[in-house]
């Protein structure tokens, strides 16, 4: 039976070099991944900041999200009455819940220009 020769010292040194090359490659990949992640985050934040100032007349959030149209909650009448549609706070002008009806009795108040 032929016994194969034991690895020599030069072969051991070759394995060490390949391991070092592998580790170096992994380091480069890790650095590249980190760089891409940081650059992406910076690009998103920069784009959001640009958009928040590029659409004036709208509110902008300072957390880096793109600006969004103002949706105030203060223009609506109470939600308990039938007039409580989201008027004043929605993206459209809301029609009345009940339309005006003709009346015959005297009016205590008058709608007119002031």
């Amino acid at each position: 039976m032929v016994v194969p020769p034991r690895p020599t010292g030069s072969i051991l040194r070759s394995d060490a070099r390949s391991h070092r090359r592998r580790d170096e490659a992994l380091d480069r990949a890790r650095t590249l991944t980190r760089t891409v992640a940081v650059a992406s985050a910076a690009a998103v934040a920069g784009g959001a900041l640009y958009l928040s100032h590029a659409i004036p007349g709208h509110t902008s959030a300072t957390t880096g999200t793109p600006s969004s149209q103002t949706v105030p909650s203060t223009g609506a009448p109470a939600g308990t009455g039938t007039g409580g549609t989201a008027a004043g706070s929605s993206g459209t002008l809301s029609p009345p819940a009940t339309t005006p009806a003709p009346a015959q009795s005297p009016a205590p108040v008058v709608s007119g220009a002031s």
Partner: protein
Amino acid sequence: MAAASLEERTTRYRTTAWSTRVELVVSDPGATVAAASILHAELDRMDRIANRFRPDSELNRVNDARTGAPVPVSTDLFDTLAVACRAAALTGGAVDPTVGDALCRIGYDRDFAEVSPGVAGHLPSPLPVPGWRSVELDEERSTVRVGAATTLDLGATAKALTADRVARTVFARTGSGVLVSLGGDMAVDGPADVRFVVGVADVCDAEDPPETVTIGPGGLATSGVGSRHWLLGRHPVHHLIDPRTGLPVGGPWRTVTVAAGSCVDANTASTASMVMGEPAPGWLAARGLPARLVRVDGRTASVGDWPSGRQG
């Protein structure tokens, strides 16, 4: 609930603010004192933040900054500015909060009581207003940034917003049906079946309105050239500004009355209609807003479900 029977039980409270008539009607007479107290609190609150003629108002702090830098503002003013910008956005800029300088150019740079006798000067050349898009609101920081040459005027929407707030608060605290009229811009809140009888006329202090209707919860507003007009030198001018020219509106309508889901929306639509001119009826109809429009020559047109031709 029948409007006529309700009418017999309502109580009315009247005062003045911002050079105009303020009226409060409650369906439960026992709620009158509380409702009047709420009314005055909200009038004071809005006056402190948005009165262009009050030197210490928060709005004037923004207008006086003129640096183009963000100015921190209270939540109240921020919300009021947001309502104004929303009105502008929904009307294609016809209702614009940056008309302050245009109003000053035609003499409306002080309380109307001092302007109404007439002011010296000449009609200026057309100059578009800076435009609502130049107003930047930062909700998180509660700041507003306007151009260095911009003066904000929140007259129309701030008044309507106050009416909505008063009506909402009165109903929430007292349970009474309530109608609030600030210079003819009305907000109604209350139980679903509450109704109030109101007149519709060119001006809010008309003694004999040509039309009478009942309205329920929501808003009713009238814009027109029949009030807040004065002489600038020898030129008759009024307070409704066309943002495209920076000059008083000169369209076909004398008065536009609109019913909507809130006073803010009704006022926004009526003011925009005055600015738009002939396209207004189609614009209102497309939004399902009942309206009554009176031409300069007195002819009347109705839009949507407005009870045309019915008079009280």
